[in-house]
């Protein structure tokens, strides 16, 4: 709880900045510092990557690659929000990956089954209402365009502020707000449409 105290948090950020600026000498001590500051955000990194890639294996690859990249750029980290800093790298790695994936999609074999988002199974929906709701919601989130999905995940699952999201996505806060708003609108439409479908 001490870390939530603004005074304590301020001191921590200061000391982070101090140490990082003097950490270029020794790779081992740099790694120790990196593990201390950046590794605790592994779940946030994985959650974002998992929602953006929509795939468990790809998410793991992306996270690992993102961590290696983040470590390479660690000298550029000047203290401050370690989570936002890491997620920015994760996000960029994800989008690089998604672009590559899209290219493969058009140049290699077009395997529709493999590349469409996992379809919801009507039988399960009817069998278990909770599971059905879950599947509907998950599908609808996964069907959101990437730029809407990422702000929704960061805001409602990661509970990040508009300012933090703006930092990660490299967007003005106003754009974050409007994308979030459109994401929620689309999600609402998708969910009620699916529920009406399955209700009939």
């Amino acid at each position, binding site marked *: 709880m001490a870390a939530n105290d603004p005074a304590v948090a301020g001191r921590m950020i200061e000391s982070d900045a101090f140490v990082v600026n003097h950490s270029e000498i020794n790779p081992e001590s740099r790694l120790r510092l990196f593990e201390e500051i950046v590794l605790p955000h592994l779940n946030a990194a994985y959650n974002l990557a998992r929602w953006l890639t929509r795939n468990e294996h790809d998410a793991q690859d992306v996270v690992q690659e993102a961590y290696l990249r983040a470590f390479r750029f660690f000298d550029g980290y000047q203290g401050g929000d370690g989570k936002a800093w890491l997620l920015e790298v994760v996000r960029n790695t994800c989008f690089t990956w998604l672009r590559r994936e899209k290219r493969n999609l058009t140049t290699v074999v077009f395997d529709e089954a493999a590349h469409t988002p996992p379809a919801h199974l009507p039988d399960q929906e009817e069998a278990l209402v909770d599971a059905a709701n879950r599947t509907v919601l998950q599908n609808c989130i996964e069907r959101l365009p990437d730029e809407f999905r990422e702000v929704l995940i960061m805001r409602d699952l990661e509970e990040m502020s508009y300012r933090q999201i703006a930092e990660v996505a490299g967007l003005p806060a106003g754009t974050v*707000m409007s994308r979030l708003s459109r994401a929620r609108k689309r999600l609402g439409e998708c969910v009620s449409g699916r529920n009406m479908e399955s209700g009939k």
Partner: protein
Amino acid sequence: MNCSRDLIEAYMDEELDPGLRAAVEEHLANCPACSEEHSRFREQKASIRSIAPYYTAPAPLQQSVREALRRAVASESAAMRRNTPWRWLAIAASILLAISVSWNVRRAQPRTAENDLVAQNILSDHIRSLIGTHLLDVPSSDRHTVKPWFNGKLDFSPQVKDFAAQGFPLIGGRIEYLTDRNVAALVYHRRQHVINLFTWPSSAPPVNEGSFSRNGYNLLHWTDASMTYWAASDIPMAELQQFRDLYEK
């Protein structure tokens, strides 16, 4: 306040400052449509939080990330070790270079450094003569009074000239102790400005001539067959050079 979807969402996301938050709260209490919209948003958000999966990193992922980082560090360290002999060589080479450069600079510039030191002393002396009471030991515009006054006080006889006709009247002289010896200071006026002309026999080899400007003062240094001269004043350098030319004529 008008109905605003954006404000309702920002309110729900706790992104509003207290004033705006209170205004939205008041509006929600009085506007059924917005209140309903707000409930829908809250419901959706709650269902995302409770139903949508938060994917936590599988345990093996943490392990493999750690291992990948260690491998990266190990290869970085190995690269550093491989480079070590070259690094030491480079460091040794740059130290040698620095030594030889400073050695050559010292050999090439001893006179300049000395000049610098003399210039500093001349300037201090000039300023001291202006702020103190000791500008003149022998107040006289008559060079036939000033020149004999130095006799017996110095081991040399300075050339005393007057340039009153050219706008540099002699007003007197004094003795100063500079560069480890007694030197003659001849004092001239240029309009309301004072020129101190310091002179003493040159030591061999003759030092470089030159001009210096510091803190609004100009110093001009020259030598002739046997004597060293330093003129100090706050008049423009061009006038100081004019003064020198008159003196050396």
